[in-house]
């Protein structure tokens, strides 16, 4: 995974709450067996509307999506994260993310930043007033800065370290695989296995 230390870019205001992962990428786009090529499915239903924010030329180059509360609810599809990344987003800001989506995003290096709703509103207003507003998202200092303002955000130390080092979770777990082996020795014999049952 690529290291994430900071990102500077412009924002895209998505003034909608409860944007579920079926909106981010409808199921019909989930048939690919790769991790790439999902950008066409991003917000597919809304993309046909010329008024939709991604279709507005002033927001074309935005890399920071600023969304309403409860972003990423619903299906666990990690394709939602890939679609946002494939399209070019590096950061999503919202006042609340669904758990699975947030987990997926932080595994895959898409930084999800939680800001209070009033800060999200202020950011929306600033971007809409000037779409060229430079937004700096810094993981080192855990701050979102724009137009002379700096807002702190929280991210647990462990996840922050993993993102800043670009570390792969699987590699970290495998480093101490003997702990898993030890645990397995103590597992109850009655726990089921998926091997076929022969009657």
């Amino acid at each position, binding site marked *: 995974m690529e290291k994430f230390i900071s990102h500077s870019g412009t924002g895209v205001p998505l003034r909608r709450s409860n944007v579920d992962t079926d*909106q981010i990428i409808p199921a019909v786009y989930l048939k690919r067996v790769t991790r790439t090529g999902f950008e066409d499915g991003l917000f597919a239903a809304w993309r046909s509307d010329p008024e939709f924010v991604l279709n507005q030329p002033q927001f074309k180059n935005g890399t920071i999506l600023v969304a309403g509360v409860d972003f990423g609810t619903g299906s666990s599809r990690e394709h939602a994260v890939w679609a946002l990344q494939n399209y070019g987003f590096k950061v999503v800001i919202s006042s609340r993310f669904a758990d699975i989506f947030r987990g997926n995003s932080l595994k895959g290096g898409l930084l999800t930043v939680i800001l209070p709703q009033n800060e999200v509103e202020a950011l929306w207003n600033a971007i809409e007033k000037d779409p060229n507003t430079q937004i700096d998202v810094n993981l080192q200092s855990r701050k979102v800065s724009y137009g002379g303002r700096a807002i702190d955000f929280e991210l647990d130390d462990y996840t922050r370290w993993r993102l800043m080092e670009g570390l792969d979770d699987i590699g970290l777990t495998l480093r101490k695989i003997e*702990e898993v082996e030890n645990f397995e020795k103590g597992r109850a014999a009655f726990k089921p296995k*998926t091997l076929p049952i022969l009657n």
Partner: protein
Amino acid sequence: MGRTLAEKVWNDHIVRQNAGEPDLLYIDLHLIHEVTSPQAFDGLRLSGRDVRRPELTLATEDHNVPTIDIDKPIADPVSRLQVETLRKNCAEFGIRIHSLGDVEQGIVHVVGPQLGITQPGMTIVCGDSHTSTHGAFGALAFGIGTSEVEHVLATQTLPLNRPKMMAINVEGTLKPGVTSKDIILAVIAKISTGGGQGYILEYRGSAIRQLSMEARMTICNMSIEAGARAGLIAPDEITFQYIKGRPHAPKGAEWEAALAYWKTLHSDSDAKFDKEITLNADELSPFVTWGTNPGQGVPLNASVPIPSELADEQERVAAQNALVYMDLKAGTPMKAIKIDTVFLGSCTNGRIEDLRSAAEIIKGKRIAGDTRMLVVPGSARVRLQAEAEGLDRVFLDAGAEWRSAGCSMCLGMNPDQLKPGERAASTSNRNFEGRQGKGGRTHLVSPLVAAATAIKGTLASPADL
């Protein structure tokens, strides 16, 4: 201090615990399907890793499969490739798979319990958010993303931060015609789609204790719709009786050992929950959704809400958007809403009891003239059982379609989809925009309301017939 049920299961699976790090939990069962696994297997190959415990992994084909002509090759080449990729991956890594046409094939969350492989006190994961279904057995079960699927394949563990605990107390007795689907829709309407975020939900109380295992699965299934990754119910005699004798249930001395452990799996009387809410089952009536998220629901006897009367600005805007998408006028009685398609099925309500209860309403009647009804058993076994009981004839004689097992119209992925503008009463779990097909409109309902609606052509309960 006492511990909650979820804390007991969590603690029993900790492989590693260090301050400032997520706990590393051992995973007892990993269920996989065709949609969220191919990139994970690719990841394994790229890093030269193997599947650590194939004998704790089980695959089935469900999301992307057709429910008619299953003896023919899948028509859509992209869908076919995805299903064939799963078959190849399972063959390469030695994982048991139930493919289309196999008697054990079906929706992953119907198959696990039916095989008896879902048991109390287990940790169960799957790249599907409705994995919470298995929580009905007192298992800690939750949906994961594809990166996590790869992690579990490679290590049989997952690093996880300990969630908070919420008790959902449902006391009293449900009135006739009111089901566990109505309980969970009412819970979600009460706490909203974000209310359970960061929590594990434990459903408790006298109303829950009276429910069958299948009814409990319906409730736990939709925990994710309240924002909670997992929801569970303490196992009891109803649970043990359900598991006993199933193919993967422990036998002999192992059954006794398992039972002794399972009986310890309940929240202690002095356990502390971070949050508690209470619902009175006696007051519940059939519940339906009017909007585009599962929290936008009302009793069937009520009317479409008036957005301007909502105090919260975000809720007001969301309601306005939802009414536009759903093409509904504020204040319309829910029972006046005409339905084009009724879908009975899914991991929420595609089990034998769901089909039986709907068939009982439909028996001897015809579905309304321009209404279509699709009945899709949750698994091939459910289909066979229903046919043995003659339920297929009941549905077919009423004018419904009788299909093979799969996720079908719950998600607009396989050929079963709504057309733009089509309105459905659906026993599934999500009424999101376009969920059942681009431009399709969904009202979530119980199997009883689905059956009555099919007969009447408008949203209805059996009492309205």
